[in-house]
């Protein structure tokens, strides 16, 4: 039986399990002690507990100094006071100190209205900052995906924790000490010269405006206003499961129809769906899997197995930096975003009679790495990118507001055809395990020639960091692994490198939870229930779809018949596949 502890918090008698922090005990009782650096994504086993901001201090009877509620365990008979004059003075003074080293340009800050520090200043009713003095001065730096403005950093260490402990990327570190301490890539270099994968998890957890996305909204406004341009848009599966949060809808409300309607209102010429390209990805990746398996079972020992999914651009960056020795393992299939761009600027453009140079392909993504991905040289034709640029869910939400659209009052609308049609398989790409589940639905039928009756592969769903399952592929036991979060991915990758991997196929998503937890999504503010709700929304949409297997998408079938030929055929290879590069550092003797 779990041991419990009785204590008193502000005149409430509280009983909590042993090991509970004062902060959790207080909040469980309805006493919302303020906190800033602390973050706990329970379902993902991700927590940030440096106990360093000192906003959450409380008075504990018999203790010499104040205790940080986040990092102080409850003890039997403890008497805690959260609102004494001493506590409130300390909280206010500590916040004033933070603000004394923070620009007060809230009105023009990209985080305004969504900033934890701003909210705290409102809550503690700060009206003046009594401390004048030196302010940290750091040069603002931008990469294709992320803008770093460290003069706004409050040194909560969340980004550092994400980058190192969760993602094991190690691009960001705490540097210097004392007042000069900050978070930075090594040698103060720009992120673009570091190992950064642009997964954006640092941005997803930053409580202030120090880390934000490289915003492309204004570029879109110009393009939409330009009559010479045909502007089309694709929306990633995870966007529809989270966009509603920006309009105060409960987490997990799927807003697909309203989103389409809003995009049409904004003036896009066509509103298409990345899910269409997700179905296409399954055709290519699934075929590649079956091809490698067939050759392997035929006795070809040179076949690179396990095959790894390659839809996640941050994940691609990760293995290019850290696993350049096994670049032949991942599927060569491009991500859905890039498959869409490639097909849109070839097949669709020809069909629609639009010249490539007049066509602007925009993507709405839950992701920051997608911004970088569409700028990669491999995805350009004569310098023109297949996808011109990518916007995040957050950027879309703010644009909808700027276009005077009453989002919640919009009627549902449908995507345009042909590239708006998708199956349930494409929808679940947005959550961890979804790509693998979609691939299994198709691979099973292609491999066995039989109809798959139950399309739900429950074993690959859920928030566990590494999931494994064995699937009977008509007598062949296919072993699959799924990892979300790059730290988990690293674990599986190291097994492969050391030749002790048991898997035939592995799905990897860089962000915890998959794309629903992407760096471009509405901020979760430490609430992991939001991520679960988003995931459930996608599974619900999948369940409601007419067709749930990618190879049954009529427009995909048509696309192959009319244009591409066979999956992993020559044309498909040219338009839908890519190759990877060694981005690691090499030491050269002089």
């Amino acid at each position, binding site marked *: 039986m779990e041991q419990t502890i009785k204590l008193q918090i502000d005149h409430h008698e509280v009983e909590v399990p042993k090991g509970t922090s004062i902060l959790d005990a207080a909040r469980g009782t309805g006493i919302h002690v303020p906190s800033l650096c602390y973050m706990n994504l329970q379902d993902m086993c991700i927590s940030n507990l440096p106990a360093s901001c000192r906003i959450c201090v409380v008075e504990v009877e018999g203790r010499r100094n104040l205790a940080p509620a986040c990092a102080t365990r409850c003890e039997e008979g403890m008497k805690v006071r959260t609102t004494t004059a001493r506590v409130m003075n300390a909280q206010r003074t500590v916040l004033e100190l933070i603000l004394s080293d923070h620009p007060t340009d809230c009105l023009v800050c990209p985080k305004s209205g969504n900033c934890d520090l701003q909210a705290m200043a409102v809550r503690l009713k700060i009206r003046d900052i009594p401390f004048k003095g030196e302010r940290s001065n750091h040069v603002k730096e931008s990469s294709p995906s992320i803008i770093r403005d460290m003069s706004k950093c409050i040194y909560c260490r969340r980004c550092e924790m994400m980058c*190192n402990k969760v993602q094991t*990327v*190690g*691009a*960001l*570190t*705490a*540097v*210097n*000490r004392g007042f000069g301490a900050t978070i930075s*890539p*090594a*040698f103060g270099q720009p992120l673009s*010269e*570091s*190992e950064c994968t642009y997964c954006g998890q640092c941005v997803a957890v930053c409580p202030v405006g120090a880390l934000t996305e490289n915003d492309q909204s204004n570029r879109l406004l110009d393009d939409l206003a330009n009559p010479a341009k045909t502007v089309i848009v694709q929306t990633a599966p995870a966007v529809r499961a989270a966009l509603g949060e920006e309009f105060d809808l409960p987490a997990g409300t799927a807003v697909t129809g309203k989103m389409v309607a809003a995009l049409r209102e904004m003036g896009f010429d066509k509103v298409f769906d990345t899910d269409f390209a997700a179905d296409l990805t399954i055709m290519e990746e699934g075929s590649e899997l079956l091809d490698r398996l067939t050759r392997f079972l035929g006795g070809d020992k040179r076949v690179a197995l396990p095959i790894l999914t390659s839809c996640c651009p941050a994940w691609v960056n990760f293995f290019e930096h850290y696993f*350049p020795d096994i670049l032949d393992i991942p599927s060569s299939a491009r991500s859905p975003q890039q498959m869409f761009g490639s097909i849109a600027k070839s097949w669709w453009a020809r069909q629609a009679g639009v010249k490539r140079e007049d066509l602007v392909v925009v993507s709405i993504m839950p992701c920051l790495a997608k911004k970088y991905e569409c700028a990669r040289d491999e995805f350009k034709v004569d310098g023109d990118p297949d996808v011109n640029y990518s916007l995040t869910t957050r950027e879309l939400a703010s644009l909808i507001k700027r276009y005077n659209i009453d989002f919640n009052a919009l009627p549902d609308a449908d995507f345009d055809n042909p590239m708006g049609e998708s199956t349930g398989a494409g929808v679940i790409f947005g959550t961890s395990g979804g790509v693998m589940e979609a691939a299994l639905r198709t691979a099973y039928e292609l491999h066995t020639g039989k109809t798959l009756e139950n399309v739900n592969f429950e074993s690959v769903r859920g928030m566990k960091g590494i999931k494994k399952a064995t699937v009977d592929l008509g007598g062949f036991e296919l072993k699959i692994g799924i990892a979300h979060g790059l730290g988990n991915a690293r674990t599986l990758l190291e097994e492969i490198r050391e030749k002790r991997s048991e898997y035939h196929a592995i799905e990897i998503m860089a962000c915890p939870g998959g794309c629903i937890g992407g760096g471009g999504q509405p901020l979760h503010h430490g609430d992991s229930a939001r991520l679960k709700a988003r995931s459930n929304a996608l599974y619900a949409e999948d369940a409601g779809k007419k067709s749930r297997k990618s190879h049954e998408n009529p427009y995909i079938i048509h696309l192959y018949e009319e244009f591409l030929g066979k999956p992993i055929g020559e044309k498909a290879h040219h338009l839908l596949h890519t190759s990877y*590069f*060694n*981005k*690691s*550092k*090499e*030491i*050269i*003797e*002089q």
Partner: protein
Amino acid sequence: MTTITLSKCTIDSLIEICAKHGNQTGELINILHEAQGQLGYLPREVQEVIAKQLNIPVSRVYGVVTFYSFFTMTPKGKHPISVCMGTACYVRGSEKVLDEFKRRLNVNVGDVTPDGRFSLGSLRCVGACGLAPVALVGDKVYGRVTVADVDKILKEYDDKE
């Protein structure tokens, strides 16, 4: 692929230092001490090699190097000058001595003169409090230094190349 270039003998000696410490991350500070002992400072390239040997992100190495005041990324002058700013020396006027060195050399603490001959630093207590205020040039200790002595001390190194 990003390339880092460094002379072969430096690379070899760094690899040897790391290997001596079992390429263990826990030994990072000892490794940095030895590397700085051999090379005089820890430029970026050196940190990259150490990171690679220990199989850790170079940011980790850089984070450590910038935390500890003993480690430096810039080479010191030929004659490194350190003025003790421990409390005992401070109350006996070491701040004025330091100011005079700054003025004479026209550099700030932590800088090297343009000709590379002197670098100026401050340190906290060399434990010769009986001699306060104390200044060091290289390993040589100067005790009971006054502002007027600064000129004499610097002149000692005039002819030393």
